[in-house]
């Protein structure tokens, strides 16, 4: 029996979200990691508010990047290990739809939660409330793009026993443009300048990866699964 693509996406999405919500510790751990990493910067550099405000966009973005990297390795691994992924691939549903559902679910439990926690960190780092709009939207688009790039990397490394370090090696260079646009949008917003330019660029990158990355990630999965 085959079901329509949208129905397939919703089914996989609901399954992924249910599985994640049953293990709340795995959602919380990257968030706690995010908080801890951002604490390290004031401790190691300087607690001076003026300097911290200058460094805040970079700190925020690097910590968000590392925190979402942590959970990427598990994106396809659990399902690949117990054979679920092969069954999904054989279900007659296009692999692209499955990749889309799994990646969106991954973003909802990692990236979106990170965006929700980030105001706390931003306040602690002295980012003014007026800058929250550009900061939150750039983080939301950035983490979504990162999830797509991560899906490609996770698809390529899912067949490996120890793919975690290699996954970072693959995903981090690709995510550098993201870091540049995201941090500069936040930075401009903090100094009271218009942040629209880098935000638009970030949105363009986000749309581009959302359109193309599912195909690349599905191709990667096909290579490693067969």
């Amino acid at each position, binding site marked *: 029996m085959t079901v329509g693509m949208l129905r397939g996406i919703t089914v996989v999405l609901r399954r992924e979200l249910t599985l994640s919500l049953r293990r709340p510790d795995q959602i919380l751990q990257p968030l706690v990691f995010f908080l801890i990493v951002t604490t390290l910067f004031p401790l190691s550099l300087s607690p001076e508010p003026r300097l911290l405000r200058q460094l805040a966009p970079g700190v925020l973005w690097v910590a968000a990047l590392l925190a979402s990297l942590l959970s990427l390795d598990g994106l396809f691994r659990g399902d690949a290990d117990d054979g679920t992924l092969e069954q999904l691939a054989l279900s007659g549903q296009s692999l692209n739809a499955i990749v889309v559902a799994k990646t969106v679910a991954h973003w909802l439990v990692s990236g979106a939660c990170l965006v929700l926690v980030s105001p706390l960190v931003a306040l602690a780092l002295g980012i003014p409330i007026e800058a929250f709009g550009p900061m939150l939207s750039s983080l939301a688009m950035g983490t979504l793009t990162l999830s797509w790039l991560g899906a490609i990397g996770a698809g390529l490394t899912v067949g*490996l026993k120890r793919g975690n370090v*290699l996954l970072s090696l*693959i995903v981090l260079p690709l995510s550098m443009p993201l870091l540049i646009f995201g941090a500069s949008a936040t930075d401009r917003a903090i100094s009271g300048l218009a942040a629209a330019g880098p935000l638009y660029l970030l949105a363009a990158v986000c749309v581009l990866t959302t359109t193309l990355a599912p195909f690349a990630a599905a191709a990667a999965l096909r290579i490693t699964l067969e």
Partner: protein
Amino acid sequence: MWTWFYRLASPPYVYRVAARCTPWLLAGACIAMLYGLCDGLAFAPPDYQQGEAFRIIYVHVPAAVLSLFAYTLMATAGAIALIWRIKVGHAVAAAAAPVGASFTLLALITGSLWGKPMWGTYWAWDPRLTSELILLFLYFGVMSLRVAFEDPARGDRAAALLAIVGVVNVPIIHYSVQWWNSLHQGATIIQFGKPKIAGSMLWPLLAMLLGFMLFFGAVLCMRLRAEVLLRERQASWVRAAVQA
């Protein structure tokens, strides 16, 4: 008409062609580089602003061009191998990756040596420099992904896919000096209209570029032969070729 193209998919044919091309490419590379280096280092006039220090351009620019060219070639070969299932394409990509990474490293090193007297620093976090560094990391990623798999065929295909995804970086590097305010100088040679560089400086540069291209071709052919032998080591023609 297309038979020559189809024959390129056959490993023994590629092995023979690569062997036949190597000495010619090497000889051409030697002649072009000899002329380029002599003319560029000794006879071209010193730059009005940079003095003699500009002469590192004759190594830096060809290395940078080749770093991008080798990446594009690697991704193209990988795409051909993925789409038409031509195994030689993977061998070409595997042979090109370390050479391209070396050119990238050479471009970064010569660039930083040039940067010290001109900009007063070995390294600046400038778009052109940063994107070239990303290119180096991409090369590393592709090379480590290829050897990470126990099944070499899978590693080949995974590396090819990653190389194709990384192609987005190539236009970013090329246009970075136009898109962002960069410390790095803008395009002087590859652009519409007349080049912004004097002929006496341009000719040795073009010769060096040609020399680097031919050198890359020669090294690629040599590495490709080794790569094909390694991959086809079970085949009977390899035994015949090695014993001959």
